[in-house]
């Protein structure tokens, strides 16, 4: 069975598998990184969102072959020790979740969004986040959290 070097959260893992194995399956079942959630397996709900080279991708439909060697970041590496990432803080302050099952995916998608669009309008948020589903319907608060995160980033001088 072929081996793949997956660089996840700054650490390289050698994973046995086929090139079209799902990244989410490897994260959850072989590396015990369960912060990325399984919601649909179709790339439709965004609960499994991770960053690959800084861009938000749906890990359930991402194959390990093409991402071998790239920088993969999961929710487990977003907080800096006890210090939460501004986006995580914003989600708590805006109370932007109910059951919270979509939240880690929403946080990752927001981080990806703000890298490409640092100051999105509400219409841009709705368009660019549209493939992340919150079945509890916390959308208005998630929009509020994203705007709050923009302010926090601005205060912290994070622009990248």
């Amino acid at each position, binding site marked *: 069975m072929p081996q793949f070097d997956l660089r996840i959260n700054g650490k390289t893992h050698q994973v046995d598998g086929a090139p079209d194995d799902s990244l989410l*399956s490897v994260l959850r079942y072989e590396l015990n990184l369960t912060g990325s*959630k*399984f919601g649909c397996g*179709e790339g439709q709900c965004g609960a499994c969102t991770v960053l690959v080279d800084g861009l938000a991708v749906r890990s359930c439909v991402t194959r390990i072959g093409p991402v071998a060697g790239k920088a993969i970041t999961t929710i487990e590496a*977003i907080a800096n020790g006890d210090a939460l990432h501004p986006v995580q803080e914003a989600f708590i302050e805006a109370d932007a979740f109910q*059951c919270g099952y979509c939240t880690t995916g929403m946080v990752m998608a927001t981080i990806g969004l703000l890298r490409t669009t640092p100051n999105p309008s509400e219409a841009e948020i709705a368009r660019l986040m549209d493939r992340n*589903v919150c079945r509890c319907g916390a959308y208005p608060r998630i929009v509020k959290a994203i705007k709050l995160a923009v302010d926090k980033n601005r205060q912290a001088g994070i622009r990248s």
Partner: protein
Amino acid sequence: MDEPTARAASAAIEPERYELAEPGRYRFDLDRRGFLRVLTAMGGGLLVISTVPVVAQQETGRGGAQGLATDALAGWLHIGPNGRVTVYTGKVEIGQNVRTSLAQTVADELCVPMGVISLVMADTDLTPFDPGTFGSRTTPTMAPQLARAAATAREMLLDLAAAHWQVARQTLGIKDGTISDSLGHTISFGELTRGQNLTGVVSSQAPEESRDRWAVRGEPLHKVNARDIVTGRHEYPPDVIRPNLLVGRVIRPPALGATVKTVDDSHARAMPGVIVVRDGEFIGVVAPNERLAKTAAAAVVVEWNLPTGLPTSETIFDYLRQTAQPAQGRGGGGDPLGAAASPPSASPTSTRSFDATYRIPYIAHVPLEPRAAVAEWTGDKVTVWTGTQRPFGVRSDVARAFHLADDRVRVIVPDMGSGYGGKHTVDAATEAARLAKAAGRPVKIVYTRAEEFMWGYFRPAGVITISAGVDAAGRLAFWHFDNYNSGSSGLNTPYAVAAKREQFHSAESPLKQGSYRGLAATANHYAREMQMDAIARALGRDAVDFRLAHITDPRLRAVLTTVARKAGWPNTSRPGLGLGIACGTEKGSYIATAAEVSRTPDGFKVERLVAAFECGAIVNPDGLRHQVEGAIVQGLGGALFESIRFADGKILNGTMAQYRVPRFRDVPPIDITLIDRRDLPSAGAGETPIVCVAPAIGSAVRAFGTVDTALPVALKA
């Protein structure tokens, strides 16, 4: 294992109209000495137990309370020597925020900071029996129960302190987990109880704290475990990992009702590390990882006997009428099928009648967390971590499947990824237990999205017929309302009518159906409110005035007039829009909703929603606003696009790509007014706000043409 029996038992308790009152066959057979042993094992301290009937009365309408444990002893609250407070409740946290709101209740009554309280929830070995988390019962029944337990502990602590200092009890103050006397001495709860084994018994008659003295309750606190959620540290049921965990898959028939003809599992059995389990109709595989489990499942070749002649999503409405049983339930007099269509003899004064038939499709809950379970056997006892709204019910299902006593099964429900009424029965628990038994190691099952659609259950489809008459003075003279299959919640009209008959008829459902947020109240409100709107229009009456002329309940009047005012009724915010309104009451709370819509080339778009909600005294305003907002957004799905398509026992749109749920772009600005009535007891709030979304939108869309008498809302071509 007798799998078909287990399934049949599950199916028998699913329909929402029975609101799932599993008889309370369970007892906490510990006596008071038993609890003392438990307390000793906890390191001493103070334990509050109760002798009250711990099982809430259910809304079954069929006297389902027989056999309930009425004199059980249950442990509710423990204060440890370190001052930590542990609260035990069989309720489940599914996103409705009760882990926080129940802690607020205890903090208030016990006079401790929120930070020292931990809730142990939904662990059948540790928490008192609970029938399940549904019916918006947690705040109305569990919060007062925990308040009484906390108040009992508080009074015992004051007695202890009074004895300790040899002073009169009324000279003492109590705050932040500490008692102080008039001389400035202080002693903490932990110090007071250290080295002791104290049990207190709370009675159902214990007085409740007056609501005007709430301090922590009424505050908009953040969720207590928010940090674990945003960091991904919280373990949802599919995230549970056990040592030596294996991964399981069940081989599912391609259609509901299909049975096994032949099986060839030789290829799967030949795979290293794979175990194939066959037991009657049950076929499953176990493998060391998900990838191999999937491959092994695909390698099992099954020929199926497929069902034929089943109704489809097109023929279902005729089918429900044809298979309907004689009427039952409220307002019904056992009238034969079709009586609603016959001319009402009791209404000689009526001058105009209005008849309509409404069609309600099956819809899916689509909890983002699919059904999942991890099962682990230790000897003849199995522990199952799973996501369910009925931990004790699932315990019973698993026990029955393996012919075990209930105490040989422990069900633990970690705070889970939502339910909306869709996780009352969870076969994944039994399936994981069966596979784990065969493998001799813990096994995890997580349903695929397609499995969740097909092997969960749906909100029932239904047909609702209304025949209403209005007299010469413009008042409702008669109201005949017949609901076929969708359910009896919200069946009764809140409007004053001289003669009314409201009936529910059960029917055969080709799909698995069960509970859903708001149950049938959404369907019944849709039909009733659309009909009220149609009648008002036909009479040339204002839709709000027409309703108010038939409403005596001041609470319903208050939400309706509030929404009308907030929405600017009857004027739209700009020309060319449609404005609609609806109101209702269910489960003791009151909702009115207004919707403003615009015309689009392919139909309409919801531009704005306005809602007013009243559920008595508000415990956590932010949590409540969350619930109201969420219910409204969820209601948008059923109002605008959700509908299960099916044929031949197969779900034709059972994927997230095909079954559309509300997304960011679907959500308009939502203006919510919460009416806080501290003078009234708190009613549940997680469900009722959903019921008026569809009729408000439907009536608004009537500005653009004739609206079909069906859900989702659509203009007639």
